[in-house]
C-alpha cells in the first residue's frame, strides 16, 4: 500500500458524517462575502452599496496576479461594503448582501444533467476558470487558474487529484466523490486539458473504500485517469506528502509541485472546475461537513459562500450544550471560531464542534527530548528545537533550521507527550522569519 | 611625572634595566635560598633513611643498577661504629595507579626488611595513598623477602593488599622486590 515514508501520525478518524448524503442548505437571509477569501491579494469590489445583484453576478474582481473573482451567491441588495469580523474576529473588508428571492444571472446551466463534452480549448478553459473565480477547495484557496498557467521552462506531466481527506471528521470530499463521481472525472479531464497533461492520478485513502471502488470503475471510461488507494496516514493530504506517496518525487524546499512536474488539486476543486467550464457556474457554493461527537446530526451540507455559520449549526439541530470549541476545518489544521456569526468562505471544508472535555489542551510541560516530534514531522524538521527558538525569540536560528519548510500539519504537537504547543511557536517563528527575510 | 615616551631606545633600555635588576635580584635570592633548599632536600632524605634503618653514625652512598627498570637505585649503607647495620635503598616503580612511586627500603644485613618509607607518590588520596599508612607498611617489618613472597595475596603472595587499591599495593611490592633483588645481586653487603 502506498504512502509517504517520513513521519506522520494516525489520529482517530471519527468520520461521523461519512454516510450522510449531501444536503442542500437553504439560502440564508444575508450573506457576507469577504474580499480576501483566497490566497493572494484582496479582490476589488465592482458593485456599490444598495446595488441589486443576482446569483452568480460578478461582485468583485481579482485584479492582482494572485487573486480571484468573487460572485454573488445570492440575489438581493448590497447592504454595505465595509469591515466585518471574519471567522477569528479580525475586521476584514467584505460585501454584505441582503437576500431577496433567488434570481440567477443568465447563462448558468442549472440542470443536473451531466455535460460530458469538453468544448473549450486549453486557453479558454484557463480563462473560464479564472472568470468563474474557482480557487482550491482543499484548504489554502489558491486560485486554480494560476496553477494552470505553467511558466516558461516548466513541464508538468501529471495532475494529482487530492481525494485524501486525511483530516479526521471531515467527509465533504468523500461524499462528493461518491455522489458526483462522474462530474468529478469530467472536471479532472478539463484540468488535464487545461494543463496539457495526459495523466492524472486520484489519491484516496483506504478508509474510503467505497469511493475508491466507485471512481475506479468510472475512471475506466476516462483516458489517463488512474485511482490510487493510499494507506491512512496524516498528513497525506499535504501536497508534498501526496506527491511523494503517489509518484515518489520530493518537492525541494521552497519549491512548488510544478518544479517536479506535477500539479495538485483537490476533488472539490475539480468538481468546481466542471461546473465552471461545463455549466458556466461560478464558485458560489461548496460542500461543508458539519460534525462533531456531540452534534446531533452530523451532516454534509451544500452551502452558499457567505452563509453565516450559525445557519449551518442550526441545520444540525443546534449547538450542543457542552460545546467547548468550534473549529472551522478539521481538528488538525482548522482554526477556532470566535463566534458563529462569521460566514462560510471558499476554503471552509468543515465546521467541527468539540465537547468541552475534548477541547482543552493537556498541561504544558518542559520538553523531555523524547524525539517523538522529530520522528513524526513529515518535513524532517526538529520541532522541539524550533519551538525553543520561538520561545527564546531566536528567529535567525529558527530560519537556519528551515522552519519555513514547516507545513503546519500539527503532527508534532499532536504527538508531544509534554503537550508542548510546538506548532504555535513554529507559527510565531514563521511569521518572524518571514519578516526577517523580507527585510533583507 | 610625565610618562616616558615609547621610543625604541627607551623601550629597550627600560626592559634591559628591569630584566637586569630582576635577574640580579633573583640570583641573589637564589644564592640565599640555595643553602636552605639543599638542606631541606638533604633533611628529607636523611629523615627517610633514619626512618627505615636502625641507629647509625656514618653512611655511604652508591648507585646500583637493578636488573629490571631504567634507572639505577641509590644505596645508602649505614655503619654504627664502623659496623654495618643496614642499607637503605631508594627504589621506585612506575606501576603505581598514577605512575611513579618512590620508596626508601631499609634492609638489615641479613636481608630482612627493617622498615619502609614512602618518598614520593601521586596515588589517589584516600585510596592509593594508604600505602603510606602504618597499617599497610607494618606487615613488611621484619620480613625476609627470601621467604616472604612480595606479592599481593590475589597474585599468590603474602601481602594483604589495601582494599580497592590492589594496583598501588602491587606496585609497592614490586618496588620493594626491586630493591631486594638489587641488594642481593650487589652481594648483600659491603
Amino acid at each position, binding site marked *: 500500500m502506498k504512502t509517504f515514508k517520513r513521519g506522520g501520525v494516525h489520529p482517530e478518524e471519527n468520520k461521523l458524517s461519512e454516510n450522510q448524503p449531501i444536503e442542500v442548505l437553504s439560502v440564508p437571509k444575508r450573506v457576507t462575502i469577504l474580499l480576501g477569501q483566497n490566497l493572494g491579494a484582496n479582490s476589488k469590489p465592482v458593485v456599490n452599496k444598495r446595488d441589486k445583484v443576482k446569483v452568480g453576478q460578478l461582485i468583485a474582481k481579482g485584479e492582482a496576479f494572485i487573486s480571484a473573482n468573487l460572485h454573488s451567491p445570492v440575489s438581493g441588495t448590497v447592504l454595505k461594503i465595509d469591515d466585518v469580523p471574519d471567522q477569528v474576529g479580525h475586521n476584514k473588508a467584505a460585501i454584505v448582501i441582503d437576500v431577496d428571492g433567488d434570481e440567477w444571472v443568465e447563462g448558468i446551466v442549472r440542470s443536473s444533467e451531466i455535460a460530458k463534452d469538453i468544448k473549450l480549448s486549453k486557453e479558454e478553459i484557463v480563462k473560464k476558470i479564472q472568470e468563474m473565480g474557482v480557487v482550491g477547495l482543499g484548504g489554502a484557496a489558491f486560485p486554480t487558474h494560476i496553477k494552470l498557467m505553467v511558466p516558461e521552462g516548466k513541464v508538468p506531466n501529471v495532475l494529482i487529484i487530492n481525494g485524501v481527506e486525511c483530516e479526521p471528521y471531515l467527509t465533504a470530499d468523500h461524499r462528493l466523490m461518491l455522489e458526483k463521481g462522474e462530474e468529478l472525472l469530467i472536471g479532472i479531464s478539463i484540468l488535464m486539458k487545461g494543463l496539457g497533461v495526459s495523466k492524472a492520478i486520484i489519491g484516496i485513502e483506504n478508509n474510503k473504500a467505497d469511493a475508491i471502488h466507485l471512481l475506479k470503475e468510472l475512471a475506466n471510461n476516462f483516458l489517463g485517469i488512474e485511482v490510487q488507494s493510499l494507506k491512512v496516514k496524516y498528513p497525506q493530504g499535504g501536497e508534498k506528502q501526496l506527491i511523494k506517496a503517489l509518484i515518489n518525487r520530493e518537492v525541494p524546499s521552497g519549491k512548488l509541485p510544478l518544479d517536479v512536474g506535477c500539479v495538485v488539486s483537490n476533488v472539490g476543486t475539480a468538481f468546481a472546475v466542471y461546473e465552471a467550464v461545463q455549466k458556466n457556474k461560478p464558485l458560489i457554493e461548496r460542500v461543508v461537513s458539519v460534525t462533531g461527537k456531540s452534534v446531533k446530526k452530523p451532516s454534509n451540507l451544500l452551502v452558499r459562500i457567505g452563509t453565516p455559520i450559525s445557519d449551518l449549526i442550526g441545520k444540525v439541530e443546534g449547538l450542543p450544550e457542552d460545546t467547548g470549541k468550534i473549529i472551522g476545518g478539521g481538528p488538525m489544521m482548522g482554526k477556532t471560531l470566535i463566534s458563529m456569526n462569521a460566514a462560510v468562505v471558499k476554503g471552509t471544508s468543515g465546521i467541527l464542534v468539540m465537547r468541552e472535555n475534548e477541547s482543552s489542551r493537556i498541561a504544558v510541560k518542559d520538553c523531555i527530548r523524547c524525539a517523538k516530534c522529530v520522528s513524526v514531522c513529515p518535513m524532517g524538521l526538529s520541532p522541539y528545537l524550533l519551538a525553543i527558538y520561538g520561545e527564546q525569540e531566536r528567529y*535567525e536560528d529558527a*530560519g*537556519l533550521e528551515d522552519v519555513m519548510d514547516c507545513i503546519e500539519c500539527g503532527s508534532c504537537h499532536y504527538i508531544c507527550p509534554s503537550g508542548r504547543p510546538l506548532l504555535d511557536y513554529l507559527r510565531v517563528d514563521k511569521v518572524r*522569519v518571514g519578516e*526577517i*527575510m523580507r527585510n*533583507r | 611625572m610625565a610618562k616616558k615616551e615609547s621610543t625604541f631606545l627607551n623601550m629597550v633600555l627600560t626592559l634591559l634595566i628591569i630584566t637586569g635588576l630582576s635577574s640580579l635580584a633573583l640570583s641573589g635570592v637564589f644564592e640565599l635560598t640555595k643553602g636552605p633548599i639543599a638542606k631541606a632536600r638533604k633533611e628529607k632524605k636523611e629523615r627517610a633513611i633514619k626512618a627505615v634503618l636502625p641507629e647509625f653514625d656514618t653512611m655511604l652512598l652508591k648507585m646500583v643498577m637493578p636488573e629490571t627498570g631504567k634507572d639505577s637505585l641509590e644505596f645508602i649503607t649505614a655503619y654504627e661504629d664502623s659496623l654495618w647495620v643496614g642499607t637503605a635503598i631508594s627504589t621506585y616503580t612506575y606501576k603505581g595507579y598514577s605512575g611513579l612511586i618512590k620508596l626508601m627500603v631499609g634492609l638489615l644485613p641479613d636481608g630482612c626488611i627493617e622498615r619502609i618509607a614512602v618518598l614520593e607518590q601521586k596515588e589517589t588520596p584516600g585510596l592509593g595513598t594508604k600505602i603510606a599508612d602504618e597499617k599497610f607498611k607494618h606487615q613488611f617489618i621484619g620480613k625476609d623477602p627470601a621467604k616472604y613472597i612480595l606479592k599481593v595475596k590475589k597474585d599468590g603472595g603474602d601481602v594483604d593488599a589495601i582494599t580497592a587499591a590492589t594496583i598501588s599495593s602491587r606496585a609497592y611490592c614490586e618496588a620493594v622486590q626491586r630493591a631486594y633483588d638489587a641488594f642481593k645481586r650487589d652481594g648483600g653487603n659491603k
Partner: protein
Amino acid sequence: MPISKDAITHPGIIHEVGSERIYVKILSQSACSACHAKGACSVSDLEEKLIDVKIPSGKSYNVGDMVTVGMEKSLGSKAVLLGYFIPFLILLFVLITMLAISDNELLSGMLAIGLLIPYYLILYLLKDKLQKTFEFRIKE
C-alpha cells in the same frame, strides 16, 4: 545577504570611508571575552582590528554606522589552516625528518622553527591571491 548557514559575522563600526572601500573596526575578543572582569583586566586581550570591505554597489556608508561584516565560515577554517595548521605540520614534519637523520635535537629544533620563515615568505608572495580569497562582505 540572505540567511546563510555558513556565514560567520561580526558586528563592527565603520571607522573610515574610502572611495571604494570602507574600513570597519571590530573588537576581537580574547579568551576572557565572557569574563565579567575584563574591565579590571584590560591587558592585551581586548583588541581592535580594522577590516577593509569593498562597498557594495549602490550603497553609501557613514563613519560611525553599525554594520555587520561577514565571511563564509569555510573561509574562517581556511584561514586557520593557512595561518596555523600548515605551519604546524611543517614544524612537525621537519622535526621528525631531522630527528630521523640526525640525533641533534638542537639543530633539528632550530631548523624546524627556522623553516617557518620560508613558509611565511611564500604566504607573503601569495599576498594578492589571499587578498582576493579572504574578501569580507558587508551586511545590511
